[in-house]
């Protein structure tokens, strides 16, 4: 045995032992830290958590991933919950998780500030910021009059090869389709999806891709949450974009408004700190911060909306209660698959 290999063997031994210690310490359900599963972009959440830590002295651990994935994880872990709070970018997934019985009600008195349509009936989750599903376009390539004025216009063959949508697995997309089902029925929805796909849209992994594509003129328009449009307006380049709020006529569906919010996990390792986090995030000050950091729209009417955004109430909104979306969540994925919208 050469000296070299003894050294290497020792090195590996240290690695294994060190790893075992670090792994079990960091991921073994530590009661000292508030563990937050987040389906939102880390950059949007981090500033708020930093402020929370500063004000309360509670340490947080932010574990980011896809909301749908983390939601399913919460259900799988329900016999031994690992997380305290769940920040999701979609009401449908929060409602799905609630129906699986893994959430506990938020006790904060500030919950009442949020309009009832944007929170769970039993108070287990609450929206913190709003996002409207809009059609963002590049005015250099297409005029406002030529743009589709309704989601259902996306099926029109004249828009062949001209727009982008996200993958079917995107939580916002699933909830949007669920809302369309609620409005138009299953058959019409399947037909709509088929016709949209026949138009050969670019299918992206997320909305970030779409806003960049529209900004750079790779596609004429795309279906996004409105804050992606706001974010693109603030880019140093390719920021000449505009947006259509579809389905505004009285007989039409209206714009589907979804929320990002917080849900509290039942029997989590650190329930009191979790309640404190909910109470903190529900404060107007923090909600204002959301609109500044991620450029979403506030749910509380009193909060002032920056001039680039349309506040809730100034456009016609689809009358679909968010707390009915969870019921059809998994089902909607199947319907989308049936229509050929699978990935």
């Amino acid at each position, binding site marked *: 045995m050469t000296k070299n290999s003894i050294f*290497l063997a020792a090195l590996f031994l240290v690695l294994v032992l060190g790893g075992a210690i670090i792994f079990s310490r960091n991921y073994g359900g530590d009661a000292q830290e508030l563990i937050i599963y987040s389906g939102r972009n880390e950059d949007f959440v981090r500033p708020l958590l930093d402020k929370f830590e500063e004000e309360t002295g509670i340490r947080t651990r932010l*574990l980011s991933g896809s909301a749908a994935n*983390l939601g*399913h994880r919460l*259900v799988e*872990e329900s016999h031994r919950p690992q997380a305290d709070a769940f920040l999701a970018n979609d009401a449908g997934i929060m409602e799905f998780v609630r129906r699986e019985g893994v959430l506990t009600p938020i006790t904060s008195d500030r919950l009442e500030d949020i309009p009832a349509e944007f929170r769970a009936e039993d108070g287990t989750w609450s929206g913190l910021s709003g996002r409207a599903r809009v059609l963002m376009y590049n005015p250099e390539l297409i005029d406002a009059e030529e743009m589709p004025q309704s989601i259902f216009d996306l099926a029109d063959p004249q828009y062949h090869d001209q727009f982008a949508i996200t993958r079917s*697995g995107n939580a916002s997309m699933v909830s949007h389709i669920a809302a369309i089902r609620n409005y138009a029925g299953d058959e019409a929805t399947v037909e709509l999806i088929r016709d949209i796909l026949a138009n050969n849209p670019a299918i992206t992994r997320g909305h970030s891709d779409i806003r960049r594509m529209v900004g750079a003129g790779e596609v004429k328009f795309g279906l996004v949450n409105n804050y992606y449009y706001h974010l693109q307006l603030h880019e140093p380049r390719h920021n000449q974009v505009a947006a259509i709020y579809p389905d505004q006529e009285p007989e039409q569906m209206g714009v589907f408004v979804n929320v990002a919010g917080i849900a509290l996990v039942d029997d989590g390792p650190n329930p009191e700190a979790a309640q404190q986090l909910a109470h903190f995030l529900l404060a107007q000050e923090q909600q204002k911060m959301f609109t500044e950091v991620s450029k979403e729209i506030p749910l509380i009417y009193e909060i002032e909306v920056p001039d680039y955004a349309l506040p809730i109430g100034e456009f016609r909104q689809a009358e679909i209660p968010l707390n009915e979306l969870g019921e059809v969540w998994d089902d909607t994925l*199947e319907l989308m698959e049936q229509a050929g919208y699978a990935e």
Partner: protein
Amino acid sequence: MNKAENKYQPFAAIRRGMLNWWRERLWHGRSPSTFLLFLTLPIGLLMALPLAYILIYAWRGDAATWTRVLNQRIPALLWQTMSLAAAVTIAGLILGAGLAFLVVRTDLPGRRWWRWLLALPLAVPPYVGALTFIIVFGPRGWITELLGRPLFPLYESLFGTSLVLTFFCYPYAYLITLFSLRRVSGNLEEAARSCGLSLKQVMLRVTLPALRPALGAGGLLIALYVVSDFGAVAMLRYNTFVSSIYYQTTGRFDRSGAAILAVVLIIITFTLLYLEVRSRKRFNYAPEHTVQRNLQLIHLGRWRWPALAVTILIFLFGVGLPFGVMGYWSIEGIRQGALDSRFFGYILNSVLVAGMAAAICMLAALPVVYLRSRHAGPMPRMLEQAIMINYALPGVIIALGLIFFFSRYLSALTVTPWLIVIACFIRFLPQSLRSGSASLAQLSPRIDEAGQSLGMSPRQVLWRLIFPLILPGIMAGGALVFVSTLKELPATLLLRPPGFDTLAVRVWSEAHEGFYARAAPAAMLILTASVLPLKYLLREEK
């Protein structure tokens, strides 16, 4: 007394029969010590676990799910996966075999250097390669900005995806053709020439047929890789079985659809694997022991410089571009402060997972290699096959099998990074097994006998004689596992606990957000670490 003995006789006979069957049938007369069995059996079971669990899970899926998936998903996925595999295989074979021919049989300038330089793209993980192509040729890439329109469609396109994959997969065909070309007998060619064939005719009628098995094996290796790739395919938004299984696993509560897709992918993989093993068996065309004459070099004449230009171009795409682009963006990223404490956290995570996977692989390879080389019969072979199969299985499949098993039986582990370590152990143990076997093959069984005749127990023989002698081989295998784990993407993405980011995961997620400057430093580290073990890979091919 007598009566009692008689009473137990049938049991004794059965027992004797079982023991006999165990020893003679399963081990051909040499059953291993209990200690060795105790070490190897759990390894074998763990290795078979992902595959077995996917089959069980898919079997339990209800008929409606089966028909839905079979009718709605399979036809399109089959076409997309197979057309991509075919395109990359054909292009990779032409590129790989052509380059091998150039460096071995012609007077290409600098051919000794090119011989190993052209194998380097093998070290570039295809997802990093895809990212560079996106940065350069993508819809917002450098070339596109320069020309005002994209040179060719990169996303969602069979052409774009196969082009990218070809540049990073051709070395499979290249290396195996290179190896085979150097063993083509000069005697045969000389005989053919003396019978009056021209050099061109010799190439077509003697050399090319001799290369056929190598081309077959190389092509199948490429196809096997293409059907298993996740990163590049997903980054280029092309849908294959692997990416579809990934999205089904992450976005759904009901995973039986993913399991069914996985079963189809397993069948495809096994078919390719079977063909590959068969083509390898027909490998020995050339008489090895005869005196090798120097092969006659073909003089390229005025084609010398064009040939060199093509070689340089391919090298630039496969190696220059990834290193150049990632280097450029790394500097940019470092200027913007990408090397913060979080970044070092990602490095630590990567090194820990890779180090643990490597260490466990090295420990596990030891008894397995020993068992395989010192014992005969179907049992050791079964064990080896259970291990080797995982090398060909796509990472998503292994991850999916582990998710099914662990979320059901050992869910406490699903919140730790241990699952990644286990997945990489299962996936990459074949690598350390191979290099361990190679070094043990050089040790005569006489050494064992000598040890035992000096009064050592089998365990002492293993630890005090065999272990020190094969350690270098095992170490080399460990280094390979380390780097493979560092590069690993799909299983890490599927199995990581929330918030556990490794370098590969960062490359994936930052690239998705379009933050190239933040993706590049991590990619550059992976690239650098990947080049190192190529030395071992190349040695293996000699």
